[in-house]
């Protein structure tokens, strides 16, 4: 293999409890090479978020395995693995009792960075996501707009400089204009920082815009997998349902 796979999922299945008969993920296999962005596309309940949780070890696969940088998630020490992976969720999941600076600096602080380095890093991260530290560092999340909150979420995920990012519909709750703006900035940022990214969305347009590869999940199974430019040509009914949604929106694909 020419490119080293940062994330590899091999035949992973997962059910919420050992007794439960319903498998949330069924025999999922995929690989994300270093520095690429894999977009997991799927409708609500297709298992996208569960798959992210298998990658950062918040869940272990019931069968099969997930490897991060060559080691299975069971071999990783859970806390180390998670601090090695940035995580952004919808509405950002910011801590309401922390200021913006405290939110962004959380993981470096957990890692016992010296105070001066931490402050500098927080400022750098805020600048990176287009927020002025002097204006925003001391605000609380409730004093921010949805877009600003999401920027802080991205800054927080990047703060300890993890090589991997997991993004769970990070821009899902934003208005279309802000969403497009953040998608553009995020794509540029991702390319520049060479992060390995798994990005979950139910928005095909977002998937096409951000992905190096798109994987379509349906009821916990991978039903299609392709480069963005090839994805639209796939004849799988699941893909067709998504492309139809694009046309309904009146957008040229």
């Amino acid at each position, binding site marked *: 293999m020419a490119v080293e796979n940062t994330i590899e999922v091999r035949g992973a299945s997962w059910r919420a409890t050992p007794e439960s008969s319903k498998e949330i993920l069924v025999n999922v296999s995929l690989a994300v090479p270093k520095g690429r962005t894999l977009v997991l596309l799927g409708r609500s309940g297709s298992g996208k978020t569960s798959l992210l949780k298998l990658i950062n070890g*918040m869940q272990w696969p019931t069968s099969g395995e997930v490897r991060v940088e060559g080691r299975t998630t069971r071999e990783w020490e859970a806390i180390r693995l998670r601090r090695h992976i940035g995580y952004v969720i919808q509405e950002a999941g910011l801590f309401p009792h922390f200021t913006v600076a405290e939110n962004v600096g959380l993981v470096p602080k*957990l890692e016992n960075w010296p105070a001066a380095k931490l402050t500098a890093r927080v400022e750098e991260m805020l600048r990176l996501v287009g927020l002025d530290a002097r204006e925003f560092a001391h605000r609380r999340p409730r004093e921010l707009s949805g877009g600003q909150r999401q920027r802080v979420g991205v800054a927080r995920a990047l703060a300890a400089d993890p090589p991997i990012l997991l993004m769970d519909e990070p821009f899902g709750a934003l208005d279309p204009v802000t969403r497009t703006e953040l998608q553009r900035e995020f794509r540029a940022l991702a390319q520049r920082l060479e992060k390995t990214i798994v990005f979950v969305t139910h928005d095909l347009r977002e998937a096409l815009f951000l992905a190096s590869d798109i994987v379509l999940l349906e009821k916990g199974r991978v039903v299609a997998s392709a480069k963005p430019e090839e994805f639209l040509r796939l004849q799988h009914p699941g893909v067709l349902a998504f492309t139809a949604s694009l046309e309904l929106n009146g957008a040229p694909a």
Partner: protein
Amino acid sequence: MTGFWPFLLEHRGEILSHTLEHTELVLIAMFFAILIGVPLGMVIVRRAALRVIALGIAGVLQTIPSLALFGFLIPIPFIGGIGTRTAIVALTVYALLPILRNTCVGLAEIDPAILESAEAMGMTQRQILFRVRLPLGLAVILAGVRTATIITIGVATIAAAIGAGGLGTFIFRGVALVNDSLLLAGAIPAALLAIGADLLLGRLERRLRVS
């Protein structure tokens, strides 16, 4: 009733000292109830079986009529006997349930998205407890302390029955002598204490609430 104001004036020193005694009983009992209730709540919040048992016991203790509880405690060595110590133990027992219950609720009912991102960022359960659950649940915990304080101020009037003093001294004397002025000299300061505690803790609670 006609003699009430002169009565107040005449006994103001005694009223003041009983009020202080009462306040002291309540403060010491609340100190122990918080010292036991909050850490216990932190321990049981993520252990379902333990939580059911602890809240069950606290609930049963709460249902014992207060006068009976004081009575039950008297023969018990070390914590029992006649006097202040027994009263403090009984008051602590009464204050426990609201504090324990609100600690559990406050720590448990945190926005799942916040807990999820805390875990995903690699915080340990202990870090999540102290840096996320506790600060976000503080207002709810304090609401429990407030309820417990008001209950304790009321129940503490019964402490006089076992010789622990406090404002109950007037009330018991008033009942025995069928004297309204004596009753009021105990009841009014107790009510004022309760109202004051409610206002003070309510204000603190609003300040701690994180939106």
